[in-house]
């Protein structure tokens, strides 16, 4: 590198300078190759391999660490007891079992980005707009996919049989309390696609969650929890949905002819790509059904591109099913 100072200043930049000065032409130059390749060395439709670790946090009921390239996310699930007598507006009879979890707010996801994970989010600041909207998207997908069974989260009490009860009479069963699951998601390093990583972490953490055995003690009029780990039981989860995010890079500009514009769909975008791509697509699959499509920002993804996105998303789903089996 010593002779760079002596040689005549050329008209070319080093790679990093090119990327910093004009990010969009830099990405375009990569994708224009006969074999399109992204600056990270991945193919446009190549997803990053997730690495999932569960049960790393000892003080939470369930936890997971997910690493997706340079994005790492920690998720901890903590169960707290909500007494039925303390619910200000108890759900009335006609609320279906399925809606109970959402109605009572028994799942509380929170995404924290202000951890120093990226220069874009200053540590210690209040939750930014993107952190809030991530929390919301995770919560809404949790409810939309009806992942948890409400009876897993209810603590009920069956009154003992009294002497004046007939032999056929069933004793009364009342719901005394609910488990509220606080799902805290901390992003410890952010290199794009926080949503997919966070969602994988939530899924793995919920799978790992074990709630202690809890029962209503009629004499003390309170809920007691068993200290024995053997009594704890896991949650029964429906088939776990998986999400796949795509970014769409386009050279379209209002200053150019529309026909000149080219676009590429990039699977699992990193931070550099996310910054220059205006359009994004997220597909959430549960088995062979789509539970959510979020697509906004531009007109580039039509039917054909969506077909390709969903095909790739179902590949990711199968991959996660395999990973899920081993955790």
């Amino acid at each position: 590198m010593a002779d760079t100072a002596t040689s005549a200043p050329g008209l070319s930049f080093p790679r990093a300078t090119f990327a910093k000065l004009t990010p969009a032409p830099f990405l375009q130059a990569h994708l224009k190759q006969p074999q399109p390749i992204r600056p990270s060395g991945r193919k446009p439709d190549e997803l990053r391999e997730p690495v999932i670790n569960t049960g790393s946090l000892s003080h939470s009921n369930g936890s997971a660490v997910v690493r997706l390239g340079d994005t790492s996310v920690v998720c901890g699930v903590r169960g707290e007891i909500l007494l039925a007598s303390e619910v200000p507006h108890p759900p009335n009879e006609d609320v279906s079992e399925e809606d109970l979890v959402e109605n009572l707010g028994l799942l509380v996801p929170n995404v924290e980005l202000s951890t120093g994970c990226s220069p874009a989010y200053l540590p210690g600041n209040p939750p930014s707009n993107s952190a809030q909207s991530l929390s919301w998207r995770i919560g809404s997908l949790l409810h939309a996919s009806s992942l948890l069974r409400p009876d897993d989260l209810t603590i009920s009490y069956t009154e003992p049989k009294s002497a004046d009860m007939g032999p056929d009479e069933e004793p009364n069963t009342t719901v005394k309390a609910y488990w509220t699951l606080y799902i805290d998601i901390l992003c410890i390093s952010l290199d794009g696609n926080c949503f997919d990583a966070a969602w994988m972490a939530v899924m793995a953490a919920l799978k790992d969650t074990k709630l202690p055995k809890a029962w209503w003690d009629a004499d003390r009029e309170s809920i007691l929890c068993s200290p024995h780990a053997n009594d704890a039981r896991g949650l029964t989860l429906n088939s776990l949905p998986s999400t796949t995010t795509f970014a769409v890079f386009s050279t379209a500009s209002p200053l150019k002819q529309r026909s000149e514009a080219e676009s590429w769909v990039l699977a699992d975008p990193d931070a550099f790509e996310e910054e220059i791509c205006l359009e994004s697509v997220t597909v959430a699959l549960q088995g062979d059904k789509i539970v959510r499509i979020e697509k906004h920002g531009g007109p580039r993804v039509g039917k054909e591109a969506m077909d390709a996105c969903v095909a790739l998303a179902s590949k990711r789903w199968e991959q996660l099913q395999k990973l899920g089996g081993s955790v």
Partner: protein
Amino acid sequence: MPPQITTSPLSRPDGSATYTDALSTVLAAVNGPLEVSRRDELPSEATLEIHVRPAAGVGGPRERWLEAVLHAVLRSVVLVHLHPRALVQVSLQVVREPAGGGVGLGKGRGEVAVLPALVNAAVLALVGGGVGLEGMLSAVLVAVGGKGELVVAPGVEVLEGCESLHAVACAAGGGLVMDESTGRFDLGVWGEVVERAREACLAAFASKGEDEAMANGDVEAEPWMRQVLEEKVRDANAWREST
């Protein structure tokens, strides 16, 4: 029934509009180009700022999410390069939404249901405020019922029992600018939904000639958005003709 629209209900902002359909009412106000704070300044384009206020209470994560979606959608039609280092501010007040605050419409349906109204109100206000747009844009809500039937611009009773719900926005030229879908569906259904929604969206601002090709007995086939805007232009030019 086509949506009910009032253009320029507010006198202070540069542009404003109210949009009412079977499910929701939204009041939109647009100001711009304005001076932008140093922190948000972009050297080559205008900053787009979206504020969504719910029908009751103060905004939370749900409104931040709606703002993020609207920002991406509007950013794709507003000619932001015309006003570098400036601010275009869009404020949206939800006046009425299905099942008041989304309590009765769980599973992400309440938010998807209110999105088309927010997009349409914002576009009408942007046009009213004279902010340059690349082309028109309109949004529509499509529900897929329990028997697989498609309902364009459904009522509340359809929402409660629907299999899936899709908020779709199309720009002039037919580009799919927004699709927020929730529920349970497959790609085939999604394709049909997008096709129907595209027809409905384009019909909203089709010119009279195109309209005939678009109309296929649909409720939304009437070019309601074009009619409203044409009427507004006529009113604005009335003084010219009278002198």
